[in-house]
């Protein structure tokens, strides 16, 4: 906890005609870009964003003893009454569970007990998966808002929602506070609060996985709206030549087959963008087809295709 607090400070600097505030939250580098008039204003706006990100992290992190997630997960079968914000997040999780036909499930976090995506070949056995699957499934939970009851051993986890939710919450606080255009970026999930005035757009780069130096990243002009990315090239397992993605299917307890390495989606809010990219990931091979049907802008990375030696002499 001491170490966590130690990292909690913001640094503000001028950057290409706008202000940039940096801080760490949710184990990611975070930043606020804004068209503030001066350092003091940039500092104040960055602190608003950072404090909201840290508040949400503390409240919903599954690693922090004593918070609401810990109370629910360690209730040992007893009912736990939750506050309105937590209730809304759970309701949102339920909607996604239904929309995704059970593929998005806030009780699936316990699968991490057996799946450790560290690039190794530590694949769990079918028996291990079956055993953990006894603790997975929203249908086993009794949710009568604001009261949640689930069997001992089961856990809920807002890891799939928290960061995007924090981006949108921070953006909403900034909109109440200022008309200055801000870009909130929490570890790559980001939103713009209002149309920029000093420039036409905010420019955002989308990096391809293992991008070689001679291949440009896609550069995006974002006037208004949000972007979120699912997937991480560094989180996977390889065994006997089969690559296991870190996207787990809560229906089976096994990684989704043929999932892209990463998907970035543009949407009105960061939460929508994040959920669409996550749901697309869960479609595996059908990710692009799913996204096409949603009529959203997206960038799907199925791995960098290395250039071969030039054919020409």
């Amino acid at each position, binding site marked *: 906890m001491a170490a966590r607090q130690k990292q909690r400070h913001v640094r503000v600097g001028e950057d290409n005609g706008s202000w940039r505030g940096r801080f760490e939250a949710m184990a990611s580098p975070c930043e606020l870009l804004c068209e503030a008039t001066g350092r003091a204003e940039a500092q104040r706006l960055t602190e608003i964003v950072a404090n909201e990100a840290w508040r949400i992290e503390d409240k919903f992190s599954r690693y922090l003893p004593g918070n609401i997630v810990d109370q629910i997960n360690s209730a040992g079968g007893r009912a736990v009454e939750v506050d309105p914000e937590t209730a809304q997040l759970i309701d949102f999780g339920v909607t996604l569970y239904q929309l995704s036909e059970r593929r998005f499930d806030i009780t699936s976090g316990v699968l991490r007990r057996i799946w450790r995506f560290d690039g190794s070949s530590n694949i769990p056995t079918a028996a291990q998966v079956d055993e953990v699957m006894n603790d997975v499934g929203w249908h086993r939970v009794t949710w009568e808002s604001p009261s949640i009851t689930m069997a001992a051993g089961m856990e809920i986890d807002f890891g799939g929602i928290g960061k995007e939710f924090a981006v949108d919450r921070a953006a909403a606080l900034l909109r109440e506070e200022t008309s200055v255009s801000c870009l909130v970026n929490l570890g790559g999930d980001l939103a713009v609060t209002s149309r920029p005035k000093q420039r036409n757009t905010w420019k955002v780069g989308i990096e391809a996985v293992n991008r070689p130096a001679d291949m440009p990243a896609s550069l995006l002009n974002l006037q208004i709206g949000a972007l979120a990315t699912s997937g991480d090239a560094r989180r996977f397992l390889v065994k006997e030549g089969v*690559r296991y993605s870190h996207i787990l299917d809560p229906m089976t307890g096994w990684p989704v087959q043929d999932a892209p390495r990463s998907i970035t989606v543009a949407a009105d*809010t960061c*939460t929508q963008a994040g959920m669409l990219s996550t749901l697309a990931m869960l479609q595996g091979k059908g990710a692009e087809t799913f996204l096409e049907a949603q009529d959203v802008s997206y960038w799907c990375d199925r791995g960098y295709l290395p250039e071969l030696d030039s054919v020409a002499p």
Partner: protein
Amino acid sequence: MVAADVAATKGSIMGNNSKLSISGALAAATCTLLGSGLPEPVQAQEEPGWDFNTALLYYGEDGDRVQDLSLNILSRRAFIDDKFLSLGLTVDALTGASPNGALPQSSAQTFTRPSGEKTYTTPAGELPLDDSFRDTRVALTASWQQPLGRLYQLSFGASASAEYDYTHAGLNAKLARDFNQRNTTVSAGIAVAHDSLDPVGGTPIGLAPMLGEEDTSNRMGDQTKDVLDIVFGVTQVMSRNLLMQFNYSYSDASGYLNDPYKILSIVDGVTGDAIPTNDFGDDGPSQLNVFEKRPDTRVKHSLFTQAKYYMNGKVLDVSYRYMTDDWEIDSHTVDLRYRWPIGDRSYLEPHFRFYTQTEAEFYRASLIDGQPLPEYASADYRLGNFDAITAGLKYGWKTGSGNDMSVRLELYQQSGSIPSEQLIGNQLDRDNYPDLNAVILQFSYRFGL
């Protein structure tokens, strides 16, 4: 709630498509979660920009030999759906002197210039260098790359170049397919080229003697060369840190493959000295020489393998190439690079390359007077037996505006030898194949527009 109504309507309109209704329902649920009104609709467009890779390269050989200043601009435009247009421009300015193939002698040697106009003289004891080497080359390339279905990548392109006495035109295409969850990429490429030579004063006839000024009876008209290249490759992601590539390539060249500026000395079979001649007075060669002649076909096979190993931002890049051809040149190339990050914004990259080749079967240091001419002969040092080492260092950094800059300095040293059975008499006492040293300095700048 207004937002939810709008979203629900959107959902029901699209209700016949259950997947599409997800965005509507999701929008409604998000509004409820965030407790906010309907946000302004997203506006994001991919930057339709160009990516420019520019480089200025200086290559200089010591001892007044070849100097090349080369400007290279490669631009790439990304379109939506992973399509790319690439356009390249290279301008080379070449000056300096190059060995003409004749051996050093104990007396001065005079040669007719390749143009057939005027002569030049090499002092006694020095390697004859033709200093009329001066040219500007302009080369253009264009290529288009696009996905073909979900697993295929297709690219095709064209190239052309022009210099004073040489033009090149080529076409190429490549198809790649991904397998094994995109951990394996298999590709096949083909390139064809048609080149024309039009040396000043005509193209020398192989093994014809060097004549005096203005005598073109040893010359013929324009000549052409056709080249076909085929490449098969496999790229394999071995682990999260290791990427490997294997290529086989085949190259078939036919037509006029001689270097029109290279000659061989005609020497005495006992002393090894060039045979003097007075046939041309002051207006031609002072000793006997003939133009080189190579076979009119050449088939090369090469195998290439490369491994790139990533370790916390450091990259080790090792490659090896084996090439063999029907001129009996075998070569091996080992190339090592190590990218070593310094902070977030810069890196150092040491580079080491070793190259070795055997001589062509028709490589001859000289031809003996009075003996029948062989079918083919060349004294071009590039077809001889030599080793070469390149060692250098590159420093790259990101500029304040996020562009990439780098500077590279490399030293090149080539040392060759003539097979001892080809050396006769006094030739054994002379340095017929001096070492070649060169320096390479390159500035690169990569930016987007």
